[in-house]
């Protein structure tokens, strides 16, 4: 019988570990994508931010999913710089605030948190869908997640749908003309390149799916205690 992932603090800690590892692994590619249409620093900046966020959560472990996301968001704002620091940071803070201080989020509450994150990015950055920004990955992800839940799918399948939509959204930025951020200075020449922000956004959503797959439930055999960070246990179950 498939177990249902529990969206507790340990789940989000696991997401953070996966996100920090993924951002580090993909750092060179994100910077490479940022070179022709930006300023060649997106991977470096994201890596610095998620490394700092991992450390912040280790030093003062938050006691709720909402608290964890607020801590991660605050740390990104204080350490990333550029546009991605305030955008991702505010998105995660808003998502955290939407979850409040409950010890566990329900699947619909996670959907509300995703929607709050997307709304924060759109409000702060002013980007519309199709402007070749992280919104082009985040908005389809949020909609796919909510749609999957409405179709009666479980949280793992809904996160899988979200990750797929985010990836497709990021890839669909290739033919777009950039209208926000530094790529917009290039005009027509921004066409033909995948947006680095949409790409990192798809990676972060993909880590939510991976966290759900790797961690079947708080009562399962590999449940991470608050002092057991890292991607050790889940690997064994694959």
């Amino acid at each position: 019988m498939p177990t249902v992932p529990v969206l507790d603090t340990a789940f989000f800690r696991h997401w953070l570990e996966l996100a920090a590892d993924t951002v580090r692994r993909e750092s060179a590619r994100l910077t490479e994508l940022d070179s022709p249409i930006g300023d060649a620093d997106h991977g470096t900046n994201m890596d610095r931010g998620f490394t700092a966020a991992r450390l912040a959560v280790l030093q003062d472990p938050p006691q709720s999913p909402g608290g964890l996301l607020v801590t991660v968001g605050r740390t990104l704002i204080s350490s990333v710089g550029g546009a991605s620091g305030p955008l991702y940071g505010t998105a995660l803070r808003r998502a955290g605030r939407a979850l409040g201080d409950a010890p566990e989020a329900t699947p619909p509450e996670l959907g509300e948190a995703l929607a709050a994150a997307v709304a924060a990015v759109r409000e702060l950055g002013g980007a519309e869908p199709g402007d070749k920004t992280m919104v082009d990955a985040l908005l389809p992800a949020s909609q796919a997640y909510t749609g999957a839940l409405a179709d009666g799918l479980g949280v793992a399948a809904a996160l899988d749908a979200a990750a797929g939509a985010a990836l497709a959204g990021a890839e669909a930025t290739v033919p777009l003309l950039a209208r926000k951020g530094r790529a917009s200075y290039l005009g027509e020449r921004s066409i033909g390149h995948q947006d680095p922000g949409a790409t990192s956004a798809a990676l972060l959503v993909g880590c939510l799916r991976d966290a759900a797959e790797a961690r079947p439930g708080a009562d399962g055999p590999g449940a991470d205690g608050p002092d057991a960070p890292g991607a050790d246990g889940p690997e064994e179950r694959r």
Partner: protein
Amino acid sequence: MKKLINAPDQVVPDALRGLAAAHPELAVDVAARTVVRRDAPVAGKVGLVSGGGTGHEPLHAGFVGPGMLDAACPGEVFTSPVPDQMAAATRAVDGGAGVLHIVKNYTGDVLNFRMAAELCEDEGVEVRQVVVDDDVAVTDSLYTAGRRGTGATVFVEKLAGAAADTGAPLAEVAAVARRVDACSRSFGVALTACTTPAKGTPTFDLPADELELGIGIHGEPGRERRPMMSAREIAEAVLDAVLADLPPGGPVLALVNGMGATPLLELYVLYGEVDRILRERGVEVARCLVGNYVTSLDMAGCSVTLCRADDALLRLWDAPVRTPALRWGC
């Protein structure tokens, strides 16, 4: 690419330690990433804070001192500083008359400074933000992030700094800064791309026999490539772009700025052409600067900035200034 560094991720702290050693008149906090004039806050004077990614030296830290900025916040290379830095700098220079944030128009800089201003206003410090957006290479429309802030930043920081020194209130200093931005236009040209320490390879490929028109100061490519041109032709192309958009008026301040890897010898070749063309077109140059002021690491190339300056602005320009990179009258 060879770089005179110890490690790519230590460039900014290492450079700040060097700045501190070379300029004891500046209080450099390497950990907090702030550069503040040592006698700050100056009681009753509006404080001026600017900042941005590093890689544009001497901007901004080189313009900290009496008559110009009270503090600068250096970010990572080509990356906006973070709100904590800006808030720390703002607190350090608030002499009771409020603080002006001078922000180059890039999404990251604007967002981070906006967050810092909110933090400081919560603590009771009055903050105004002035956004510099002088680069005519970018189409200013609803469909872009707007014009970039480039060479005019030097004019804004100098003239607003002089206005603050007269004891003018925050609203008036902010108005001077906005006026300077509104009557300044810039355009840049790259002969080579630049190489960030972290990436280690050029940010874009520019063939040896081509140049790029309309580049920014972050190694981001421009809008158009052409076969390599002479200094005379480059001056014509740049001034065509700048003058087409410059508001009408009297004499100008002129900045012929090097992007980092172009020798001063060549900048003077260019300035000679600029001066000749402006005379031919009936534009009087009241004051000029020739040199490396707003650079883009090791990019070869130049930018030209013109600012219409009336007598009031010229008086502010001539007022004493004492910073590492700009000093006269004192």
